[in-house]
């Protein structure tokens, strides 16, 4: 249980990208706000604030969610993965590398959400068809690429990961 403090703030703890993390926040703050503004994890983006665009996608206990649609106090005890937790600059995942090689990003703003969502897909389904990729990623809006190169990057990463 999260602990309500006198200040009106609540103490919350969770495991984020493998690190035990605790924070104080107001009950009205979304998980996305806390990740970005209190914990400095600005890789997750706000594009719409109501779950329409997917730019704030994270994994919560292994499930793909829109972090703008969840209150931070509800994350007590959970295990969270953000884009900062999938790969490192010196060691990109196949998916991250394929996004670069296939030019699957232009402005790059929707990219964190797509990467988190696509990683969640490949974790479940190592050999998705084009239709399956398109269905899975339909909750992520990209205005730059027309999706063609994103779908191809996911296909290529899947093939590489299968070996």
């Amino acid at each position, binding site marked *: 249980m999260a602990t309500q403090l006198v200040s009106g703030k609540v103490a919350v703890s969770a495991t984020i990208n493998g690190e035990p993390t605790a924070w104080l926040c107001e009950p009205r703050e979304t998980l996305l706000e806390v990740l970005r503004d209190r914990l400095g994890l600005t890789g997750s983006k706000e594009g719409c604030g109501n779950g329409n665009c997917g730019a704030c996608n994270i994994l919560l206990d292994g499930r793909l969610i829109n972090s703008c649609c969840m209150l931070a106090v509800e994350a007590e005890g959970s295990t969270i993965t953000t884009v900062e937790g999938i790969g490192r600059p010196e060691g990109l995942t196949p998916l991250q590398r394929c996004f670069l090689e296939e030019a699957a*990003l232009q402005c790059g703003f929707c990219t964190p959400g797509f990467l988190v969502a696509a990683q969640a897909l490949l974790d479940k389904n190592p050999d998705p068809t084009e239709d399956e990729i*398109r269905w899975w990623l339909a909750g992520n809006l990209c205005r730059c690429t027309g*999706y063609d190169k994103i779908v191809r990057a996911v296909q290529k990463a899947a093939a590489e990961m299968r070996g």
Partner: protein
Amino acid sequence: MDTETKYRVIGTRPLRPDGVDKVTGRAVYGADVVLPRMAYGKILRSPHAHARIRHIDTSRAEALPGVLAVMTSRDLPDVSASSVAMGEGGDMNMRYASNNVMAHDKALYQGHAVAAVAATSPHIAAEALALIEVEYEVLTPVLDVRKAMEPDAPLLLEELYTDTGGEKSEKPSNIAQHLIAEEGDVEKGFAEAAVVVEREYVTQTVHQGYIEPHAAVAEWRADGQLTIWCSTQGAFAVREQCAAILQHPISQIKVIPTEIGGGFGGKINVYLEPVAAVLSKKTGRPIKMVMDRAEVLMATGPTPGGYIRVKMGADAEGNLTAAQAYLAYDAGGYPGSPVSAGCTTVFAPYKLRNVRIDGYDVVVNKPKSAAYRAPGATIAEFATETVVDEICEKLGMDPLEFRRKNSAEEGDWRPWGPPYTRIGHKECVEAAQASPHWNSPLEKEGPDGKRRGRGVASGYWMNWDGTSSCTGRLNPDGTVSLLEGSTDIGGTRASIAMQFAEAFGVDYEQVRPMVVDTDTVGYTDVTGGSRTTFGTGYAAHELAKQMQRDIIAKLASLWEVAPESITVNGPCYASNGNSATLQEVAKLLEENGQHVAAAVTVKGHNSSGAFGVHIADVEVDPETGKVDVIRYTAVQDAGKAIHPSYVEGQMQGGVTQGIGWALNEEYAYDEAGHLRNANLLDYRMPTTLDVPMIETIIVEVPNPGHPYGVRGAGEVPIVPPPAAIANAIYDAVGVRMRELPMSPPKVCEAILQKDE
């Protein structure tokens, strides 16, 4: 020489220098900026589409704990009606720009800013907005462009008169400008025609739809130095607008561009920056402001809807004899729709001798329109390209063959410009004719009673040249730091560095491109107008040549040889037995206390614009009117594709925006002028499920105005989709769609009417 082997770097597909940051969540966008002592601003917006602001009481908001300052338009200086050149956004009257940032006496659209609050948290700022009391006198809104043009229409701006070729109208009007372009004799041309088709078109307001909402942080220090961090297409354009709106010396404003999450023309005008600056001045703290999606849709961007009439005639052999267009675009609350660009592009693909074009810029109670990818061209060419399809049908001619026969070429007339230089429309048509798509038969029967059809359309955009600067430094290890003023929206760090590397004779990896602030590099126009790879690439080429000359001069002195005796072969410099690689040169210069650095500014090289030809296959459900695009090919003349993957990406992205515009996207206003779909569920942009893979064919007809022949690639691909899809719908179900979007209810109704 075969262009495939002519270049070492150009035409390859290296990774972008900012790529790793962007796939690991490290790249810093507008809303990611954090400063010590930062506070937060929020804007109160008008709930009315048209209202006089009688009184604003901010006292209750000011009293809320945590509130640091409140501002209204009284905190902005009175700006005289000066104008600032905004490049693709057109010239902007700065009094209107100031009033658009914060309404002065009238709110001209729902969402128009009327006051702002700075507080210690964004939540407190939002609470404080609810405590500001505004007394409005609600006025009748005018939303339709034709109604706004009527003589007795309610006026938005009482001091606005129609400008027709410099002549002012006698009475105030909602028509800001009437443009006229004429060539030859249209009456004679139509008299010579065997077929004349005249049609009317109505389109709706649409938004650029960048996924990153506007964001800015401003810090106004006590010494008057103002620093602004923001997501923008042009740091210098932000600096100029803020200097004018705030009446603050331009030398005391520094704009630091962050990474930008899409712009498409919509991140040229300032909205938040001057407000954050004023709030920072009032509070003595840095102020961060970030819009939410509803604010983005209600108060920024959009590109106009309009009313268009196009009439074209052709003789029995299929030669166009005359063309006439009437274009009325809604500018939003202040003048400045892209109707002039609509007039310039409406007949661009064709060789025409008898033309008349009338364009009207009309204010209505909608957000002030901004540039959007080929501003003004998409709806204009939607009209022309569907009229051409009807002419082809009546003459029994193949639509691509008709376009090839009537294609504009070098030396042909165009409105308000010098004749075309070398252009590649005909080559694009021929590439479309030879494409796998055009040569694959389409099965007309789809599953479940659906009908299939194929359509084609051409499109043009003019490739603005503008001004670009680059600064370069040779580092002691032989690498080069390349400083640019162009914000990178889709890979231009790479495409500019590639041109520098090619000209400097080094590998791409030896060049380290950086987008820098307005104090660090020379003036650079916005990333817009399809100009960045063209114009800033040109500057990078000139910079490389200048740095090479400087190296030669310094080496000549050190080697004690004549400069002209030094030969350069890639990264190797040699003369009279001396030779050194660039890496050795850099070390030698450093050891001798020498440094190679240069700055160049390139302005106004003639650019000739670019064409595309698209082929669309659609599947129409006659029961519901839903249209699915099942195959799509875009052919485009890129002049020379510097980084082919990024050119393809521009084409695929532009096509997808065009498909959204064609089939789904529109601002849905009620009669009171309230926007009823200010969110991304109801403002329906294409998802992965709405588009197929987009096939691309890059044609390369070199642009004579660029050292590598580059033509701008970004904007052309949004132009043809609505017309190509409308022509495909006709082929599928026999109805001619003349309104956008061609949404299911409209297509369904058209099918029902035809069946009656």
